[in-house]
């Protein structure tokens, strides 16, 4: 059992991070009152952005970037960080564009949130499929795989050697202690994993302990009150949705890492996106719970393939996250205290001069 856990944990955690990025993003957006059903589409935007950013970097800025060098010098290390940055910035920007469209339609044009979200999902899926096939034309596919692998590098695998940083990737995913030590495996992950967990904590603090978070939550709870208190509700809804979508977009990039650069279609990614929406409910809009929740979801989702159970059981295990979410949804609606209920004006647009 421990063996299985040991070999499956890295995979689970990488998958959980896809969920977690999406979940954090959607939580921010929902806390501001925007029920963004466009998250699957936004993640597709993100994967396009991330790929594009990385390819730009690798094609134009640093074409000779080594992929699986055993010796990983200082220059390579810096260039790795830069590549990471490019990927993150681009996927964030593309995701944010999705959020911008959504906010423009729902906040400025007061369109129905459900319908807008679904439209964004359709559009994002199209964009994702279309541009990913475009980007992977020619040697693009090859590059993508390289990107996936490079991102997969574990920062912790780089140690300070005689010629600068030395990177050892002989133990893919397993760190340098032991390939079968589950505890070790928890701690040796692609750098984005740490970024994501830190992000969850930061977002939690910002939402719950700061002035900005207070204003943002007030916009989601009761925009009329927030407006009267002098908070620019439109600005907060815009920013929350755009930033949220940007973060979800990074989740799209991480999907590419998870699949190690291979690409089939947006099908799986969309599925993860929908799962993200379930996760937000499951974690009662709390990014800290979301860390555990996303790992649980990823565990339930990927454990069948590690456990080598038969397909029927496996498929059933895949169902569990949804069933659990439904149960959580029901329980919070029956027994929920006010602080675990959805934000007061979730899904409702605010129009000031309505009388």
């Amino acid at each position, binding site marked *: 059992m421990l063996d299985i856990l040991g070999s499956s944990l890295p995979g689970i955690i990488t998958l959980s991070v896809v969920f977690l990025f999406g979940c954090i993003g959607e939580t921010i957006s929902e806390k501001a009152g925007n029920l963004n059903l466009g998250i699957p589409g936004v993640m597709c935007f993100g994967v396009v952005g991330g790929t594009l950013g990385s390819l730009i970097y690798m094609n134009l800025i640093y074409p000779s970037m080594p992929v699986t060098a055993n010796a990983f010098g200082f220059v390579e290390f810096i260039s790795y960080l830069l590549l990471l940055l490019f990927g993150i910035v681009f996927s964030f920007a593309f995701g944010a564009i999705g959020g911008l469209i959504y906010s423009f339609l729902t906040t400025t044009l007061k369109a129905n949130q459900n319908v807008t979200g679904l439209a964004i999902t359709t559009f994002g899926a199209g964009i994702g499929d279309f541009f990913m096939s475009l980007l992977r034309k020619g040697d693009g596919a090859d590059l993508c795989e390289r990107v996936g692998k490079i991102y997969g590098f574990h920062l912790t695998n780089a140690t300070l050697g005689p010629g600068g940083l030395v990177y050892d990737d002989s133990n893919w995913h397993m760190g340098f202690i032991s390939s079968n030590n589950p505890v070790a495996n928890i701690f040796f992950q692609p750098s984005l994993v740490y970024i994501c967990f830190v992000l969850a904590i930061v977002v939690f603090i910002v939402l719950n302990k700061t002035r900005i978070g207070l204003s943002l939550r007030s916009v989601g709870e009761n925009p009329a009150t927030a407006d009267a*208190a002098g908070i620019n509700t439109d600005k907060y809804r815009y920013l929350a949705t755009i930033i949220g979508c940007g973060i979800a977009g990074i989740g799209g990039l991480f999907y590419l890492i998870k699949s190690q650069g291979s690409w089939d279609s947006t099908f799986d990614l969309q599925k993860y996106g929908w799962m993200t929406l379930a996760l937000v409910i499951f974690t009662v809009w709390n990014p800290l719970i979301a860390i555990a929740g996303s790992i649980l979801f990823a565990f339930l989702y990927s454990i069948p393939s590690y456990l080598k159970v038969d397909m029927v059981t496996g498929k059933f295990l895949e169902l569990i996250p949804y069933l659990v979410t439904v149960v959580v949804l029901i329980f919070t609606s029956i027994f929920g205290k006010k602080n675990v209920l959805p934000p007061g004006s979730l899904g409702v647009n605010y129009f000031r001069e309505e009388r």
Partner: protein
Amino acid sequence: MENTVQQDISIRFENITKTFGSVVANEKITFDVYKGEILSLLGENGSGKTTLMNMLSGIYFPDEGQIYVNGEKVTIASPMDAFRLKIGMVHQHFKLIDVFTCLENIILGITNKEKANKSNARKAVMNLCDRYGFEINLDKKVYDLSVSEKQTLEILKTLYREAEILILDEPTAVLTPIEIKKLFSVLTNMRKDGKTIIIITHKLNEVMEISDRVAVLRKGQYIDTVKTSETNEAQLTEMMVGKKIVLNIKRTEPKDMEDRLFVEHLSLTNKDGTKVLDDINFIARSGEILGIAGIAGSGQRELLEAIAGVKPGYKGDVIFNRPKKNLPVSFFHKTYREVVNMAKNGAFHYEDGTPVDFTGMSSKKIKELVNKEKVIFNENEIYNLRNLNPRTIRELGVRLSFVPEDRLGMGLVGNMDLIDNMMLRSYRKGKGIAVNRKKPEALAEEIVHELDVVTPNLHTPVRKLSGGNVQKVLVGREIASSPKVLMAAYPVRGLDINSSYLIYNLLDKEKQEGSAVIFVGEDLDVLLALCDRILVMCEGRVSGIVDARSATKEEVGLLMTKKKEEEEETNGGENNA
């Protein structure tokens, strides 16, 4: 308090105009508010008081005109601008966030980092509490607060933002007399501190009690400002309504009075555990109008809703005495089996007075007798309507009509046209699954014709009609079923004078037709002029029932605050400024 002469101008409105679509809410309003005074902004419902103040607090922006604060031309385009000018407003519907604590609500929206710091804020707010005499627990969540605590929190919010000009919109509407007294002492403290306070109200006694000067609005127009010490209630009323109220409401003498509706020991507890109705007892009689008076929120609405079956879950009985004595029985509301059973108990007689006995008769024969109206009730029928829903009440054959306070939100469906709204009560009539729109259409046509409803056609959604026309449609529908009991909650609220009189006349006509009419009103003059008896409510209890022909306004006003009489001996509404 002779300091007003020397005072500087705090706010000046100049030619302020605001329209909403085709409705002019404020028209060319010009007046001044002095520094360090309490100014009452007086006007009837819908006279534009709140709209004007909303423009001062940045919720709305004036279409025309200019606002000056401390002599400077200012633009108040958002609530932020208002804060910057140290203007704070406490809205009638509190703008608080339920899931936040009091402290979080206080610092919400403050941009200054120092001030938004929670521990700083806590200290400063405690100071304010000491200074003006507030009591509040800052760590309570707002959903746990009482109404007056919420109001305190709202005032603290504005004070913490260093407001120099404080606007209170109908602050006393939701408070008990003790709480009002407390509020007024706080306001007086604040005036001593040099703050400018504007109170929006339509209650004259409070105007006289607390304010230095009174500005009066009528139908969106500014009338005048007078010093409280130099005026009296009669003059203010005249300014408010335009002319001395010579209410020309038709009141016919009641005839054929019969006890129609018995409300016995009715108590209702809200979901949050507060008692809204407490042991209500009264009888409504046919052929008379029973008025219900009381300060807003004393349980009038809940009482009517409970009787109408809209708010089930109450204790006590609502007994309807259905006038059937000496009228023939029919199969319209009674099944064959019920009729036979009742006959067994000797409930019927024939035209010649002999008791009905169905034993040995064929069912065909019985049906024939009933259908020929040969079988006649001995006595009235008694129904207990306790916790029945409106549909069941209707199916029992009890014709109970209810004109609710919230016209478009409850009585009518805004997005449906007149015809569909006519069917709301009656759509289940007739056999089969299909609705019949012919009768409602005819009814709609008749109502439009008889009550002069201004509408493009019968297919216009009612929300597009003006307030008065909406009310005509609603009242028209409710009286069309020739009700035995007609209940109307604030039926003239927001209506112009002509529509109001039309409604009064309709109610009086219903009374003549033999309905028991229950009328909840807010204007005591109207209640005294229209009703036969007035039931006065105070905090969910009946504090008295008076004869409207002999009772005085003071008498009723006293009953409205009766419960707190012992503690509030001086609360007579006299001048104490």
